[in-house]
């Protein structure tokens, strides 16, 4: 029955007990609505047929309601409405009260990516890994505008507000991969602000997180201090690549020549860029840095002014690392000689 109705209504699979409860209420509401609708429209249909006009100028009697009519009109729907509310409201309250001992994950929305950080340091971009069968509490915030964390399979949604934390919790019951949407309009790439929820068997998750903790000896909450962490030692290009990924540059800039929200990074260094003002400039270190700190100042022709400023969000060593990384990105063919202007062809839009 549950499965049948779920499929009939196009509802996604139920990943938690909460999802099952909510669907139960959904079915109750929809069935009552259908029955009530059927009764009302059947009555209307009977009236329309029975009392259709048979000749012009027919006269009709005056019919006035009795008190009990109005009482029924008010009482019956109100009883149902309040009953639904009495079922639905506690379900909602439950999602606002995480059970003690839930595992905390910090969620940070930012144009247009999700960043997940676990206690003890590990963090990841656009992939939220959780163990099966354990309650997980999400502490959600945003770096810029309002976003909303939404997993249809969990029947859960919570806005990510800049400047404050909101929370919700869930307990997934089946391992698998599920899509996370951003459900609050947040600009150009709102519909591209997707992430993945990966539910792992508990043991696998434990192994993963232990691995992460070992690998990244970050003592702090990444979400709370993003941007201020010391760079883990490795080559500067590797650091640059990692910062670019963590900061989300790669959400808008490709490194393989494809045109995305922003211009590609490949062969950017030394390229002649035409600006919206008509001016042509050469992309040198200063320009690259300025583009990160004050992107609106010089806009590349053909692109929207949507790049956020990274002023204060990256430490100077990080900025330097990113610049070095961008400088290293060259197509093999021209890597040997001096830069010969733009080599990449913007892929034609459909």
């Amino acid at each position, binding site marked *: 029955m549950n499965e049948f109705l779920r499929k009939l209504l196009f509802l996604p699979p139920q990943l938690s007990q909460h999802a099952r409860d909510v669907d139960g209420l959904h079915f109750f509401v929809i069935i009552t609505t259908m029955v009530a609708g059927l009764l*009302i429209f059947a009555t209307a249909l009977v*009236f329309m047929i029975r009392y259709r*006009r048979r000749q012009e100028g027919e006269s*009709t009697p*005056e019919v006035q309601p009795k008190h009990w009519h109005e009482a029924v009109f008010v009482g019956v729907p109100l009883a149902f*409405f309040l009953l639904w509310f009495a079922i*639905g409201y506690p379900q909602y309250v439950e999602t606002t009260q995480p059970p003690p001992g839930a595992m905390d994950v910090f969620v940070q929305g930012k144009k247009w990516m999700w960043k997940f950080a676990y206690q003890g340091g590990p963090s990841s971009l656009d992939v939220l890994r959780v163990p099966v069968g354990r309650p997980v509490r999400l502490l959600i915030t945003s770096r810029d505008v309002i976003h909303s964390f939404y997993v249809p399979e969990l029947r859960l*949604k919570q806005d990510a507000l800049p400047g404050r934390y909101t929370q919700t919790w869930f307990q997934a019951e089946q391992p698998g991969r599920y899509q996370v949407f951003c459900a609050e309009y947040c600009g150009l790439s709102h519909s591209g602000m997707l992430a993945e929820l990966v539910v792992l068997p508990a043991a696998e998750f434990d192994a993963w997180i232990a691995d992460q903790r070992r690998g990244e000896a970050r003592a702090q909450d990444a979400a709370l201090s993003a941007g201020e962490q010391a760079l883990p030692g490795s080559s500067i290009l590797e650091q640059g690549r990692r910062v670019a990924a963590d900061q989300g540059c790669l959400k808008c800039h490709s490194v393989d020549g494809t045109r995305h929200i922003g211009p590609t990074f490949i062969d950017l260094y030394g390229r002649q860029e035409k600006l919206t003002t008509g001016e042509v400039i050469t992309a040198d270190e200063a320009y690259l840095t300025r583009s990160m700190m004050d992107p609106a100042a010089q806009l590349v022709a053909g692109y*929207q002014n949507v790049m956020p400023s990274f002023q204060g969000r990256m430490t100077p060593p990080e900025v330097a690392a990113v610049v070095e990384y961008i400088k290293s990105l060259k197509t093999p063919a021209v890597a040997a000689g001096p830069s010969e202007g733009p080599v990449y062809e913007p892929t034609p839009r459909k």
Partner: protein
Amino acid sequence: MSQHLESSPPVYAERNYLNTPATGLKSWLTTLDHKRIGVMFLIATLFFFAVGGLFAMLIRIELLTPGPTIMDAMTYNRLFTLHGVVMIFLFMIPAIPSGFGNFLLPIMVGAKDVAFPRLNLLSFYIYLLGAVIALGGMIYGGADTGWTFYTPYSTTTTTKVVPILLGAFILGFSSILTGLNFIVTVHTLRAPGITWNKLPLFVWSIYGTSVIQILATPVLGMTLLLVAIEHAFGWGIFDPGRGGDPVLFQHFFWFYSHPAVYIMVLPAMAVISEVVCAFSHKNIFGYKAVAYSSLGIAFVGFFTWGHHLFTSGQSAFNAGIFGVLSMFVGIFTAIKIFNWVATMYRGSISFKTPFLYFIGFLFFLFFGGMTGIALATVSLDIHWQDTYFVVAHFHFIMVGSTIMAFLAALHYWWPKITGRMYNERWGLVGATLVVSGFVFTFLPQFLLGNEGMPRRYFNYPERFQALNVASTAGASVLGIGFLIILIYILVSLKYGPVAGPNPWGSRGYEWLTPSPPPLENFDVLPAFERGPHEYHELPGSESAAPGAGTSHA
């Protein structure tokens, strides 16, 4: 065209508001006559309906396939914003109250005009000014914030939000002035014989609408102004970076915009109460219940705004209060629906085009309303908030029921406004196409919402495509339907048969005067002995029921 009309002698008021005192464009633009102002509002709002509809069609084509179909993301984001803004502020809010309300309300209370005719004309020009500014903003670049203008997105985006906000701010004053005018007119200009309990239900509902317009619009005006100031100067009222509270904006916005949805639906109910009586040829079942429930909606509607904020992190206590109160708002609509259905009982129902729209209206209001109640149960809303389920909910109510009522009004009062009849057979075709196209467009969207597709999505995962294609297909039927209506109704202006004062055999007061009405509405003021919804025979009097086409003028 029905039989009896052709047999009755054509009655066309020779001197009417359309040709007295003059017919030139100037005489229209400077007119103080509420009927002409109403007609001008109707034309303007219909124009914006077509503009908004065009945007809607582009949206639907874009959503035919995942990824870019005919435009890029930026264009799409602007389009749905402009679609929402145009449809709500430029079409839906003024259409029935300022258009039909202006035309009919003074006639229905037996007045020569509204209380402040100059203010009325001013209201029209303020509307035009707001529309021009908003339109200018759109041509100049348009905003990409959604019609809800949520901060801090709206205060930081680089698109041209300020002219759009300013336009909406100015339009608010038009709405306030009209509402004010109506309230004063109903209070002070009722003709002798029209007591509060003999007021047409149309007037009751418009009265309720006016109350909301007056109470809610100033708050919206202030809020939009704050956003504009914030965008222009960065004063920080809603900017979390400066200690502001972005959710406060949402409270302010919905404090207006929830009541605003009743500004849109109450006039629709106003129309339907008239139509159901006229075409069932029967008295309204439960006059008082229908009349007072309008005021109930106007009142309780002010305390439910928080149901738009269930996922925004407001306290669970707030969510509970707003949820419960939303349930109570539903009751007033339920009362009306039951009473309309009961009105048909023992009636004499004639299935003219307005009545067909009444059937469509009933269907959409019921399902649109019940999905509203489902949304208000809080836990379900968490899944549906900002998905296509919400889009379907409000299109069911706003497009479904309100546009049905708008079309019912257009057909029902067309002979009164123009003196001519439209073609009934084409009317049937149009109504069938619009109602079925409508179901096809928005039913799939409920399912899309269930499946989890968020709204305002330029791009979507492949699995949502089938339902999107269905929705687009439905929209094209809808578009064709509207086009047909537009054509036959324009044709009838010239070729339609003359209607006579009362082609429907209605008891409404507006049918006691010739069509089109004379300059000051009544050549001789009737006594208004009967209620506007009374169809039964009075004891002693024979053939008291006016046969269709009988002249009273």
